[in-house]
């Protein structure tokens, strides 16, 4: 009973820099993986069954598009979600809240009707 708002609006500015970054299954997988916890490039390469060089390339593309940020400490490069990804999640949550706000405002009206009916019944009883 959930997925209701499937309207699609193209946003050219978003698409330009993001399409290539997100068009790859591995890169989308990396984003979801990093949403759970930060990880080193070595960990990611292992988890996605690819070479270190291959994973470095993917991370480079994601970093360029702002989806991932990396930081090198000693010999380990750690990856985490970039600002863009967090902004996106915040935008998603705001949209989701709007859906529920609209629903609950309508629910208020229904509950109000029920209260009035109950009052009327009490009076008649």
């Amino acid at each position: 009973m959930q997925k209701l708002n499937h309207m699609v609006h193209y946003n050219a500015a978003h698409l330009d820099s993001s399409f290539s970054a997100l068009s790859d299954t591995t890169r989308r997988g990396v984003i979801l993986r990093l949403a759970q916890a930060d990880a080193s490039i070595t960990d990611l390469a292992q988890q996605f069954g690819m070479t270190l060089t291959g994973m470095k390339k993917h991370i480079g593309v994601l970093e360029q598009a702002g989806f991932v940020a990396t930081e090198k400490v000693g010999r380990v490069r750690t990856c985490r979600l970039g600002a863009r990804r967090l902004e996106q999640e915040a935008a998603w949550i705001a949209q989701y809240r709007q859906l529920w706000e609209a629903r609950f405002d309508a629910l208020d009206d229904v509950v109000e009707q029920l209260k009035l009916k109950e009052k009327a019944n009490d009076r008649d009883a």
Partner: protein
Amino acid sequence: MTATPEAAKVTVERASERELLVTRSFDAPAALVFEAWSRPELFRQWWTPKSLGMTIVSCEMDVRTGGSYRLEIGHPAFDSPMAFFGRYLDVVPGERIVWTNDENGEGAITTVTFAEAEGRTTVVISNLFPNVEGLEEELASGACDSMEETLGQLEALLAEPN
């Protein structure tokens, strides 16, 4: 129009990587709020608010433990109504409703709890997804200009044979 009182504010939080919580309080006893959630003729009056341009084409709900529901929702952008269906895993009148969301295979488990205090009822809706991807998809589907949605469409277009 009256301003939304602080108490009627909706909060949405990501409680864990696969759980979303929505909370709101209502100025009515739990029994009444539960009624609005469990009687189909009342439920259909608010579940798809008019501002979203959706209409409930049909609504069958047998709100008791072991019962099931089926909801068909139409939107000008859809060719045909979308069906939503599942089972009620646990129903305690005035306290909670737990249901499955089966339209896309293994979906979220929705738990709605009603807690009454001083004549007001706090409703908490938990959507627990089987995995993090499920939650992300749900959030993305609620976003009008969600990138994933757009990219998904593009991907589908690109996948079409020329």
